[in-house]
Each structure stands twice: as structure tokens, then as C-alpha cells.
């Protein structure tokens, strides 16, 4: 390993260090606040490091990793999401858990896993990244083990994740058996040389199970709602954003390496899955009264949309990145509101609790509304250009079926977003809800960051050009 390679890995090393640092801080019995601030700084450090090494990219670290613009983009997205999740976590855990510190270890480890996924170009790194993410998530989901059926959610996630990992491994083994290599590009070369084989395709099929599980694609989506509901709100936000971004990144990299679009079977499978996601996700959400579950279903649908971009090949990558960015910001602000509204007893996931929020707390409701409109893909919010670019990608590749299903299902989707919005603006219940005034500083900071997120949504919604240009620029680095 050369200096250059180490340099390229610097952000990831910092990320790993963050977990260690937290352990040390715990060992030195530092307070929650200190850990939080340190973690925040470390994450900022990661971003800075990423910025610092930007010019040296792309850099390969054979055989496991490659750090290129694509990875930088996705890692940036992940770190950005984690920053917000961390912020949310503070006020969330401070009053709920007497022992919130290990949480940060797990959080940073999971982030590390997701970040590793974005740079992996080898089955081993893929697998380890994925497992690092999963194992941390088991614990994170069940972190508040006495509350909210967190343990139930944890067990469900664990069993299914382990199962899907088994599928992943078996699929990888089959591919390895066929090609004699676990490196994406080597696999592609081997396949080019030897031609496509049955085992190879079957291996891909099995890998789809694991990826599908992580991304909560139909029919591997069944866990999503339960886990979203059971997990602590910031963790849910984490699952919905970071873990999915990481997995999606590696999926795209793998697909690009082996030219997935040349396999009709894979295309068919993904098309069917995309359509199923869009339909099932949206339909399931229709009557849902639990906001977290509803967001779970909506995220199923959103990954259906995202698959449209994924299926459009190279043209779709930019769209997908943009979409993920918009989607993360949106979801983070939504979960931010849920976190802010959550009480000590339970998460604010019952829709009836949101009744008339606009008249009690206009700013919060405005943030939530903007987030929901963005999810629905309404102009002036980031969701609109995001969906637009995805449709552009789809139409460009003449995927009319997908495009039309996307359109029609987004219409169904509108209904439930509007349902929440209507609730926010409905007449408030008579009993006044007491305002929480704990931790004024962090409370304020969270609030402020949510406002920033909202503005970001609006800014991207109105002027997506900046992001588009930058994404393009980054994607050219490879």
C-alpha cells in the first residue's frame, strides 16, 4: 500500500477511528454531550478529508477497494445523513436511555460499513461492509431494548438479515465457482472470456435476494415496516438513508462492472421488482395510520422509483445520486420531526398525534409538509427534480412501462402524503400538548438543522442545476 492509497482511504480511516475514539471516551467516562460533539467533529473531519483527497482521486487499492468520484459522492451522502442522524440521536437518547454512549460506537461502525460498501470492488469487502452494517444495525434497532417492541424488531431484522446474508454468500460462492475471482472487474473479464453460464446467473439471482432485502424491495420488503416502527426514530432514519445508500452504491458498482443490463434475466427480474415495489409500497401505505410504517412503505415505493434509474444504466446513475440526495434530505427532515415530537414513553408515530400540528407549531409542520411534498415529488421541493431526472432517465432508455407505472403509482402515493398533510392542517385537538423544553441548545440545534434541511429541499427544488453539475463532475472521476 502506497502513501497515495492510504491518503485515498483517509476519510474511511477517520471514520473507523471515530468508533475507537468513542470507545476511549466511554472508557474515560466522558459525558454524552462530549461524545456527541466529538462524534460530530469526527464526521466533519471525514467530510474534510474527503474534500482534501478529492484531487487525488480516483485511486485503486487492489484488490478490495477503489476510491473514485462515485464513492466520494455516496460516502458524502452517507456522512451527511449520519451527521443529521447523530444530531437527532442526541435529544432522542438523552432522556430515554441511561446508557446512550455505546450507541455512537454502533452508529459509527454501521456508517463505516456503509462507507466501505461504497468503495468496495470485491466480494470480500462487499460482504464485510454489509455485515459490519448489519451487525451494528441489529444492536442499534434493539438499542432501546425495553421499549417500543425494539427487541422484536431487532430479532426480525436479525433473522432475516442473516438469512439474506446466507443467500448473498451462496450466490457469491456460485459466482466465484464459475469465474475464479471475487473482484468485480475480474469477474466481468472472466465472463466475457468464458461466456455467460447458468451458475453465474443463478449467483446473481441469489445476490439479488440479499440486496433486495437490504433495500427493502418487494418481495423482500416485509420486514421494513415492522423494523421502522420498532426501531428508535434516529435509527429508523439511519436505516432508511445510510444503509440503503451504501447498499445501493455497491449494487450500482457491481452492476456497472459486470454490465448487468446485458443479462435479460436480470433486467426482467429488476423490472418486475421495480414495478412490484412501486405498486405494493404505495398501496400498502394508503391507509396506514402509523407514520413510521407509512414512511417504510413509502421508502419501498421510492426504491422502486430508484430502480427505474438503476435500470437505465449509466445514464441513470446521476439521476439516482440526485434522487438519493433529495430522498435522504427529505427523510431526514421527516424523521427529525418525528424525533422532536416523540415523547419519553413512545415515538410520535401515530398519525392522530399530528392533528393540527400546523396551528400548534407552524415551523415543524412546515418542515414536515415540505418533506412530504418532496416525497410526493411536487415542485419547489427537491423531490420534484429528483423524480423528474429519474423519469428522464427512464424515458431516455424507452422504458415506457416503468415510466408509466411510476407515474400512476406516484398518483396513488399522493393520496397518503396528502392525508398526512391534511392531518397537519386539520383543526387541532382541544387538549393542548405540552411543549418540551429540555436541552435548549441541542433542541435548538436540531431545530435549526431541520430548518436548514427544509431550505435545502426548497433550494434543490428550485435550483437543482448546481447539484446536477457537481454530481456529473464527480461521476466523471473514475
Amino acid at each position: 500500500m502506497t502513501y497515495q492509497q492510504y491518503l485515498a482511504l483517509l476519510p474511511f480511516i477517520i471514520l473507523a477511528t471515530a468508533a475507537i475514539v468513542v470507545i476511549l471516551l466511554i472508557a474515560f467516562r466522558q459525558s454524552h454531550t462530549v461524545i456527541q460533539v466529538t462524534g460530530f467533529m469526527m464526521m466533519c473531519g471525514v467530510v474534510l478529508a474527503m474534500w482534501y483527497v478529492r484531487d487525488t482521486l480516483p485511486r485503486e487499492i487492489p484488490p478490495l477497494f477503489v476510491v473514485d468520484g462515485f464513492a466520494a459522492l455516496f460516502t458524502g451522502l452517507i456522512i451527511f445523513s449520519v451527521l443529521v442522524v447523530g444530531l437527532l440521536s442526541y435529544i432522542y437518547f438523552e432522556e430515554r436511555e441511561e446508557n446512550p454512549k455505546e450507541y455512537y460506537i454502533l452508529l459509527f461502525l454501521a456508517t463505516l460499513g456503509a462507507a466501505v460498501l461504497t468503495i468496495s470492488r470485491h466480494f470480500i469487502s462487499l460482504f464485510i461492509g454489509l455485515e459490519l452494517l448489519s451487525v451494528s444495525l441489529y444492536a442499534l434497532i434493539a438499542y432501546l431494548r425495553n421499549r417500543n417492541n425494539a427487541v422484536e424488531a431487532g430479532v426480525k431484522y436479525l433473522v432475516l438479515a442473516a438469512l439474506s446474508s446466507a443467500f448473498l454468500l451462496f450466490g457469491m460462492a456460485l459466482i466465484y465457482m464459475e469465474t475464479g475471482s471475487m473482484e468485480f472487474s475480474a469477474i466481468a473479464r472472466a465472463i466475457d472470456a468464458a461466456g455467460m453460464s447458468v451458475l453465474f446467473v443463478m449467483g446473481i439471482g441469489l445476490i439479488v435476494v440479499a440486496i433486495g432485502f437490504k433495500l427493502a424491495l418487494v418481495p423482500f420488503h416485509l420486514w421494513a415496516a415492522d423494523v421502522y416502527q420498532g426501531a428508535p426514530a434516529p435509527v429508523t432514519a439511519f436505516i432508511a438513508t445510510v444503509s440503503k445508500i451504501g447498499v445501493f452504491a455497491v449494487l450500482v458498482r457491481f452492476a456497472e462492472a459486470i454490465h448487468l443490463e446485458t443479462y435479460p434475466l436480470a433486467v426482467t427480474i429488476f423490472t418486475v421488482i421495480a414495478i412490484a415495489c412501486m405498486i405494493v409500497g404505495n398501496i400498502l401505505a394508503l391507509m396506514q395510520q402509523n407514520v413510521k410504517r407509512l414512511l417504510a412503505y413509502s421508502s419501498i415505493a421510492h426504491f422502486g422509483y430508484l430502480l427505474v434509474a438503476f435500470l437505465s444504466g449509466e445514464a441513470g446513475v446521476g439521476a439516482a445520486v440526485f434522487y438519493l440526495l433529495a430522498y435522504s434530505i427529505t427523510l431526514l427532515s421527516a424523521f427529525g420531526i418525528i424525533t422532536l415530537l416523540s415523547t419519553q414513553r413512545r415515538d410520535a408515530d401515530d398519525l392522530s398525534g399530528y392533528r393540527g400540528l400546523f396551528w400548534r407549531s407552524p415551523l415543524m409542520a412546515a418542515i414536515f409538509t415540505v418533506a412530504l411534498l418532496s416525497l410526493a415529488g411536487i415542485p419547489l421541493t427537491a423531490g420534484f427534480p429528483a423524480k423528474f431526472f429519474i423519469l428522464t432517465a427512464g424515458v431516455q432508455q424507452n422504458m415506457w412501462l416503468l415510466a408509466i407505472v411510476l407515474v400512476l403509482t406516484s398518483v396513488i402515493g399522493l393520496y397518503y402524503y396528502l392525508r398526512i398533510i391534511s392531518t397537519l392542517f386539520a383543526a387541532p385537538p382541544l387538549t393542548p400538548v405540552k411543549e418540551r423544553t429540555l436541552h435548549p441548545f441541542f433542541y435548538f440545534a436540531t431545530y435549526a438543522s431541520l430548518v436548514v434541511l427544509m431550505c435545502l429541499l426548497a433550494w434543490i427544488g428550485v435550483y437543482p442545476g448546481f447539484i446536477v453539475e457537481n454530481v456529473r463532475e464527480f461521476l466523471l472521476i473514475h
Partner: protein
Amino acid sequence: MSTLFYISSLVAIASTIMVITRYHPVHALLFLAVSFLSVGMIFLSLGAPFVAALEVIVYAGAIIVLFIFVVMMLNLGRETAQQEKEWLKPKVWVVPSILVLILLAEMTILLFQGPDQAMQVSVVDPRKVALSLYGEYIIAVELTGFLLMAGIVGAAHIGKHQRKELHRFLQNGEEEKARQLREPESVTNEQTVLHD
């Protein structure tokens, strides 16, 4: 060599069937040990002595012990067996089994569709593995450390329990938590030792 493979394969499959059909947890775990051991034999027959040893030590040794430990701790004995017997009615397992068997059949067909390679046995010695592990895959090893750390921290946190009323078997919970912490660590140690 291939005789060894066939015999151990049959043993592995048979004992695995036993694992999933046993009512008593301890019985099942014992069959699991058998299964792991026979898989270890298969490894040997495939020319991978190093992993064969690891299979025996870690899987059959550490992991099964961990299971047995929990089984013992929760006192999953005859009552559980009785319960399992009630749960495992044919109507519960028939449909899933048929589905899975269909899957098996399909996968088998696909396996045989693929080019049939004659099984060749070439020994990959531990040295080669070690070089590879600490050569190109060194970062992966480091990451595995983090993976295990996640496991430890997670298990440690979740294993704690705040309830005032403790189950009678769990009154000395602290101790048990400490043990749990220890188990995964032992795995890391073993690895480190093995690669030295």
C-alpha cells in the same frame, strides 16, 4: 479422497436433517456438532485442512458452545421439547418444506445444467491462506475486527437488562453478560493465534 467426501457428505446431510427435526434443543445442537464435524471432513477432502480445523474449533467449538450456554441458561429442557413437539405439526412444516424442496429441485437442475467439472483436489495449504489474508486482504481483516467489535458492543448492550424483576435463572445476570462478552473475543484471539 472422494470416498471420504461422499461419506462425510451423507453424514452431514443426515445429521443436518436431524438438527432441524429435533425437539430437544440440546439434541439438535449435538447433531449440529456432528454436522459441522462432517463438513470439516468435507473440507479436508477438498484439500483445505486449515479451514477444516477452524470449522471444528470455531463452529463446533465456540459457536455451539455459545448456543448450548444460552440453552442451559434459559433452561430449555424437556418443557421446550414438549412445546416444540406441539409446534411442529405437519401442517406447520409441510408447506414450507414443499416450497423449499421445489427450490432445491430447481437449483439442482440449474446446477446440473452448468458445465460439469470433475472434482479435483488440490491442497491449498495454510501458508498460502495466511499470506493472502495478511497480504492483499489485510484491510478486510482489520474491518473484521470492527465487525467483531460491533458484535461485542451490541451484545453487551442488549444483553444488559434493566428490569427490576428478574427471571429466577437470571439473577446473576452480570456474570452472564461478561461471559457473552468473552465469547466473541475468543474468536478473535483464536484467529490471531492461528495466523501467527
